């Protein structure tokens, strides 16, 4: 068994490469999903009914769709319509769009919990439109949503493991390729689990840090 771990250790470059890819993929996807989610939230709460209905149906579709299937659809399904992405592109798009729905939904919940008086005060002092959203609404919404955004980031990191099936060279994919070559499944996958765990610890520490900041502003 020790020998198995030694084999994985000897391929640490490949594992770390996978880890970095997972990190970048998750980070890019989280940032994009958050930005798109914030936009989608404004659509969800829009007074224009068709806009709200369209946004709602997107969110509901994503929430009922297993991520693995969605990734399949983007990578293998879309080419039937002549839309073809690289495995990286497909992975990033699938991960981002899927989590955009969740980000929008959790931001909407935080928005609904915001005291309407704050927004009213914004109106009373002449804020409206984007200026109101950006300066008065979004900051307290984000602060209230910090713990949920942290959870979602962890979800994104875990979802990214599915992308190994469309050959994105992320952590799970690399662990899998090492175990297949040397037949060391336990050691390779445990090493991957530990690395995922470290990523999640980092996210949790960041959330705790930001959470303290948010606490003072509540």
């Amino acid at each position, binding site marked *: 068994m020790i020998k198995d771990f030694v084999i994985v250790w000897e391929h640490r470059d490949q594992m770390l490469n996978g880890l970095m890819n997972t990190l970048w993929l998750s980070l890019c996807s989280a940032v994009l999903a958050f930005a798109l989610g914030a936009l989608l939230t404004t659509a969800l709460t829009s007074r224009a009914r068709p806009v709200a209905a369209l946004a709602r149906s997107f969110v509901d579709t994503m929430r009922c769709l297993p991520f693995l299937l969605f990734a399949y659809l983007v990578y293998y399904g879309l080419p039937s319509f002549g839309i073809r992405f690289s495995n990286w592109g497909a992975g990033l798009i699938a991960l981002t769009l899927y989590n955009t729905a969740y980000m929008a939904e959790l931001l909407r919940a935080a928005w609904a919990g915001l*005291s309407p*008086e*704050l927004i*009213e*005060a*914004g*109106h*009373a*002092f*002449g*804020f*409206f*439109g984007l*200026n109101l959203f950006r*300066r*008065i609404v979004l*900051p*307290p919404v984000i*602060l209230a949503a910090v713990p949920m955004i942290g959870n979602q980031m962890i979800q994104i990191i875990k979802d990214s493991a599915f992308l190994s099936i469309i050959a994105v060279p992320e952590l799970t994919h690399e662990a899998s390729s090492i175990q297949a070559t040397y037949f060391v499944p336990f050691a390779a996958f445990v090493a991957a689990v530990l690395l995922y765990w470290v990523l999640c610890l980092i996210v949790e520490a960041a959330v705790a840090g930001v959470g303290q900041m948010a606490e*003072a*502003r*509540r």
Partner: protein
Amino acid sequence: MNDIDNARVRAAAGEPPVLNVRGISKSFDKLQVLSDVSLTVGRGETVCIVGPSGSGKSTLLRCINWLEPPDAGAIFLSGRRVGRRAGGDVAMSDSELAQIRTRIGMVFQHFALWPHLTVLQNVMEAPLHVQKRPKAEVREFAEMLLEKVGLGDKRHAFPARLSGGQKQRVGIARALAVRPDLLLFDEPTSALDPELVGEVILVMRQLARDGMTMVVVTHEMGFARDAATRMVFLDHGRIIETGTPAQFFSAPATDRARQFLQRYATSTAAVADV
């Protein structure tokens, strides 16, 4: 010469009143909240609006800055129509409305400070990001206002760390920071613990003395009695009676005002007994 006479002199000289509310009505669904309310406020006046709860006081205040657009009637701020373009047929655009709203400062019952901003940032927010005034001037003015309301040392605190009385004094500084023509107070002390009411009232008295034009919805009869230039008694969405505080408190003209004041005196006496 008192303030009302001053206002009359200026009106005679052709200066429009700071606030002119002409016959506004407002309903929510089938409930008529305001019926044909008219009110003129001259510069430097402190008008206190009192009345039973549900009488439409807050709605009247919220109509003035168009947070609740009235169904009928018109509102003029220093001669300029609020909410509608001159003819009255077209609604103002958001930016026109925003521009006129920054000439009205509002103080809210539950403070409504922006929790993600420090005290100083709360005060500077609208002058910087709506009025687009230069930062150095805004900061200097905001710090001066915070000193004036006695919170100079709290400028970097977040609202969550303040007492209710402190929050409301920040609310007043925020309203003053836009250099408004008119200040609206929506029951500014009714969410406060009794021992914190005094510090807010003190600031409001000072503003009244300084000649700020104020419309105050309040249950603080002590404040109304000695700071108001005029009392307005509202019941069931109508102005029942107006007059000087001396007239209103010692010899109210209507039964309804008399009953209201009596009930009020009894309930405050009961509180004082405890």
